[in-house]
């Protein structure tokens, strides 16, 4: 196909570089400097998608970020990306894109049937229709909606692109490089201020690229180019294009996304795809310009209906005609500028002006050029399905209520101008109280809360001379405050055509007997009648109307629809727009890719990885690792083709019969020193601590103030005023903060110092009946007999020249010890244990065997101490001191905590002694009871008991103390399992605890 809508002698594209691209499988050609949209229009393609709700044909409406229609699925370098605006995506060689929202194809779309059964989809349609019957939602409605709706498909592949984050500081951040952005940046830069000038588009200059003005005897574009090249040379200025400042946060922090490689076929080596900038600016100048407003009329969503400013931009920047017999529908002078450009390029437009007798230089110029102008005329409706073919037009009465006789005229596009809406998003995000400006029928920034100033069109100023003047001044004044320099800049002479006031007209009434759809929100298909229904149904707040109708909720966030929506609500409600107010502007201003937000923090970089000093030994010995918080821990040591179940069973069994060793370095360790250390422990633990002798360890449980168990662990008295506390791996950081909280804020009188020593000590748990024999060989000079080192005893020893701490504590229920050495000696210790342990058939064991051992002996851990249970629930009530107060004690007398049938930990064994019980399953009395079946408890942890060779689980069960011996059912609907079980004691192995003391 040829580029039959491309003009020869106009545009800023590079005609020397022809690019081929594919849209919906068809190959087209464009030029370097095109957007996908401009290249498609050059090829006469106007049908690019289907609308969200009615699946009506969609074309192009704008030429930039405001685009509500032309959203495509992009294919680039083997990857795909949804939600790309064709008006923003720059063309590159080999670009491929497809339409979204249409199924099976853009030309024949099954969803378009919605369009003909209009009554089917009024406002609040989803809320009303899909409520019943409930079961239909998952099976019928949702799959259908999912298939028919949506704005593309997210890739399921790992994103190989790199995204970076950058932090920057500046005196002035200037968002937008149109006339006001350029002027203020120039003035501030000349004063020596550190300036960042950010432009969303590839080209700087904003409206100067398309308007017929003269600044200092240059065209607007030449002037802009000159300023930009001068700014780029200055060391105190950063000039960025393809960079959207999308969020304004507290303390003048702004976030900008820079699209570095999106316009290239492939990201260059060592380059990121996008970069997210976090910018702290002393002052922010918002020069984000304005977006043209549509006028609402019948079928105003037909492809070929577009903003008049967009038509002008396609023409002047890309050399592309959006149509060859254009109709310009305007309520202000801007439409004339577009018409004049058409005329100058050999196309005859017709202007329909809603105004009666406008008088201005621009109107005169159009008249002089012989353009056909119809005053007091409106477009009643566009005709044509996949493209505008003609327009129904009519004269309109002076009060804008009555339409004259409707006639049909031929045209192939309708360029609409309903005046301008300042882009106040950033100002509003900063906390600025916006105000309504009657002159332009739109909101403008009001009183600033942070250091921000809005300039030019974004502030409602549409006269270039005034804009440049105020922007030069603002740039100068604000930079002077910061740098104390005062360089005066000579103000250039500006020549522009004077325009006159616009007509406050925004919606064409329906002609008698016609029921055209008149759209407010083009992406979400919200029409005038939808808003009318919402108001009829009692929605008053604009925020509610928005959510009920989805007006302004699409990916374009109502950039072209919000104000007309407000106008409609105010008209119906007989209010003025400022009293209706606008909905909240929230970041981001434009969609930001998740990749850019995440940056480099993906995969391994998403969190730190902590490894024990013995990690390389584990690796060498076929450890299969598991994430335990930020730690990597061996889950089991694979032998041959063993799976997790087999391996962990072997390891656990070896602990019960011989001896095993487990890396317990990850346990939290806190060093506690000071004369009041015992007092602190006595207050944070539930049991008594004042009389613990030196050289002894004690198990303790600490609570939160609300009585819930926070953590457990052993603490050892190393010397008179020195304790070594251990915490669970998961709670280590919280426990330290907890202690610091009480020491610093609640009991500052306690003379105690706490510090984390988790990483200073490497730990090995040696467990099993042969552990003492092994220990004796490891420490030949120490007395490790039952008398010399009794249960819960502590000694220091010499491990082949390395100082070690030996604790006789057990997590497995076996005779067991824990040896700690300084981290640097961890690997040495481990290798010695393995070497010396060889004759005792030692095997290392991982977290899976560790869990098995603790579950079958009924030792509660993280899955029972889950932030929902009190000591009683965990059968730890024996550790509650009656004689002293402690953190959380008062809460334990709460009614629910003392209830007779309070939940308690129990053991669970399947009746068939075979079926394993999924963790998280529920326990019920009757497996066939009517739903919802009352839940009596839940399975907290499951294992294969190596002692009994059958499955065993722990559960937190209501009235647990009276349930031993009862038969219940385990329900695991996700696994489709119903398992009859018997409730037993949680201490399934060695209930009297004889082994640990042996």
């Amino acid at each position, binding site marked *: 196909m040829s580029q039959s809508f491309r003009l020869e002698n106009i545009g800023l594209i590079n005609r020397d570089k022809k690019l081929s691209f594919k849209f919906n499988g068809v190959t087209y050609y464009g030029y370097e400097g095109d957007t996908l949209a401009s290249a498609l229009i050059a090829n006469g393609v106007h049908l690019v998608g289907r609308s969200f709700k009615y699946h009506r044909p969609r074309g192009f409406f704008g030429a930039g970020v405001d685009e509500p229609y032309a959203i495509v699925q992009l294919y680039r370098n083997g990857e795909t990306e949804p939600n790309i605006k064709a008006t923003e995506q720059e063309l590159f060689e080999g670009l491929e894109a497809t339409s979204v929202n249409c199924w099976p194809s853009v030309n024949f779309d099954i969803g378009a049937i919605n369009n003909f059964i209009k009554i089917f989809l009024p406002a609040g349609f989803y809320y009303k229709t899909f409520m019943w019957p409930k079961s239909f939602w998952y099976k019928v409605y949702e799959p259908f909606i999912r298939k028919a709706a949506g704005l593309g498909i997210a890739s399921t592949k790992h994103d190989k692109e790199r995204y970076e984050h950058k932090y920057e500081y500046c005196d002035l951040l200037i968002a937008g490089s149109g006339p006001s952005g350029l002027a203020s940046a120039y003035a501030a830069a000349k004063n020596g201020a550190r300036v960042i000038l950010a432009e969303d588009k590839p080209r700087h200059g904003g409206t100067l690229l398309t308007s017929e003005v003269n600044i200092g005897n240059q065209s607007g574009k030449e002037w802009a180019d000159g300023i930009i090249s001068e700014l780029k040379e200055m060391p105190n200025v950063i000039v960025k294009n393809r960079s959207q400042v999308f969020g304004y946060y507290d303390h003048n922090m702004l976030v900008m996304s820079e699209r570095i490689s999106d316009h290239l076929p492939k990201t260059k080596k060592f380059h990121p795809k996008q970069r997210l900038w976090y910018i702290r600016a002393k002052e922010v100048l918002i020069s984000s310009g304005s977006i043209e407003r549509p006028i609402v009329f019948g079928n105003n969503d037909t492809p070929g209906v577009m903003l008049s400013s967009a038509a002008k931009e396609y023409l002047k920047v890309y050399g592309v005609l959006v149509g060859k017999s254009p109709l310009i529908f305007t309520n202000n002078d801007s439409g004339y500028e577009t018409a004049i450009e058409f005329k100058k390029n050999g196309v005859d437009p017709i202007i329909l002006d809603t105004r009666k007798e406008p008088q201005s230089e621009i109107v005169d110029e159009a008249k002089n050029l012989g353009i056909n102008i119809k005053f007091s005329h409106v477009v009643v409706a566009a005709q044509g399905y996949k493209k505008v073919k003609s327009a129904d037009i009519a004269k309109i009465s002076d009060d804008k209520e009555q339409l004259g006789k409707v006639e049909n005229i031929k045209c192939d596009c309708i360029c609409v101008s309903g005046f301008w809406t300042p882009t106040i998003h950033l100002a509003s995000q900063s906390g600025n109280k916006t105000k309504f400006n009657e002159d332009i029928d739109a909101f403008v920034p009001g009183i600033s*809360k942070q250091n921000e100033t809005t300039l030019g069109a974004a502030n409602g100023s549409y006269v270039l001379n005034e804009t440049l003047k105020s922007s030069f001044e603002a740039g100068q004044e604000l930079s002077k405050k910061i740098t104390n320099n005062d360089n005066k800049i000579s103000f250039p002479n500006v020549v522009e055509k004077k325009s006159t006031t616009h007509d406050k007209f925004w919606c064409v009434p329906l002609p008698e007997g016609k029921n055209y759809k008149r759209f407010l929100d083009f992406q979400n298909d919200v029409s005038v009648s939808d808003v009318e229904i919402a108001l009829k149904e009692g929605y008053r707040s604009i925020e509610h109307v928005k959510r009920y109708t989805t007006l302004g909720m699409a990916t374009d966030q109502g950039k072209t629809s919000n104000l007309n929506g407000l106008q409609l609500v105010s008209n119906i409600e007989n209010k003025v727009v400022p009293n209706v107010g606008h909905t909240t502007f929230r970041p981001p201003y434009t969609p930001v890719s998740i990749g850019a937000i995440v940056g480099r923090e993906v995969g391994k970089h998403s969190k730190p990885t902590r490894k024990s000093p013995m990690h390389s030994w584990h690796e060498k010995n076929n450890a299969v690792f598991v994430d335990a918080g930020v730690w990597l821990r061996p889950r089991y040591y694979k032998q041959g083709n063993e799976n997790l179940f087999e391996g962990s069973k072997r390891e656990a069994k070896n602990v019960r019969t011989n001896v095993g060793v487990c890396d317990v370095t990850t346990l939290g360790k806190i060093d506690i020193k000071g004369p009041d250390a015992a007092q602190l422990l006595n207050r944070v633990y539930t049991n008594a601590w004042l009389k613990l002798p030196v050289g002894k360890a004690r198990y303790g449980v600490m609570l939160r*103030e*609300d009585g819930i168990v926070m953590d457990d662990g052993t603490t050892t008295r190393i010397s008179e005023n020195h304790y070594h506390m251990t915490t669970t791996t998961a709670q280590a950081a919280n426990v330290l*903060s907890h202690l*610091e*909280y009480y020491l*610093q*804020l609640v009991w*500052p009188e306690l003379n105690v110092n706490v510090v984390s020593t988790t990483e200073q000590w490497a730990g090995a748990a040696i467990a099993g009946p042969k552990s003492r024999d092994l220990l004796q060989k490891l420490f030949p000079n120490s007395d490790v007999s039952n008398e010399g080192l009794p249960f819960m005893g502590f000694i220091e020893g010499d491990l082949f020249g390395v100082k070690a701490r030996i604790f006789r504590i057990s997590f497995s229920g076996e005779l067991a010890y824990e040896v700690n050495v300084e981290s640097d000696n961890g690997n040495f210790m481990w290798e010695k244990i393995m070497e010396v342990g060889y004759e005792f058939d030692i095997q290392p064991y991982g977290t899976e065997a560790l869990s098995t051992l603790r579950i079958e002996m009924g030792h509660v851990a993280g899955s029972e101490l889950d932030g929902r249970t009190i000591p009683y629930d965990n059968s730890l009530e024996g550790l509650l001191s009656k004689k002293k107060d402690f953190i959380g004690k008062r809460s334990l007398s709460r009614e629910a905590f003392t209830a007779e049938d309070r939940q308690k930990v129990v053991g669970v064994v399947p009746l068939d002694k075979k079926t394993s019980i999924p963790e998280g399953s529920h326990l019920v009395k009757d497996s066939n009871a009517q739903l919802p079946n009352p839940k009596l408890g839940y399975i907290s942890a499951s294992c294969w008991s190596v002692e009994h060779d059958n499955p065993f689980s722990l559960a937190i069960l209501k009235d647990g103390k009276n349930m031993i011996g009862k038969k219940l059912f385990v329900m695991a609907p996700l696994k489709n399992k119903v398992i009859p079980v018997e409730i037993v004691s949680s201490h399934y192995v060695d209930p009297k605890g004889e082994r640990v003391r042996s």
Partner: protein
Amino acid sequence: MRSQNEFSYGGDATVKRPELDKEISDQDWDNFVYNRKSLRGKHWELWQHLSGCRQWIKVERDTATHEIFNTLKANEEIS
């Protein structure tokens, strides 16, 4: 100035823990453990410089605007 990421929020700074071993009514204990005003506006809060010096501090902050008016060390009383 330190990044907010280094700090962790610790609740209402005006709440005083009842003294140990003191008789206290259910209502007073409830107020200490659970009942908080969800204020809009100035609010004294506890923050810990978690990834830093580990000190707990008292911060007077506007909950709506995040403006910070005042900070105190752990041992300084809110006046």
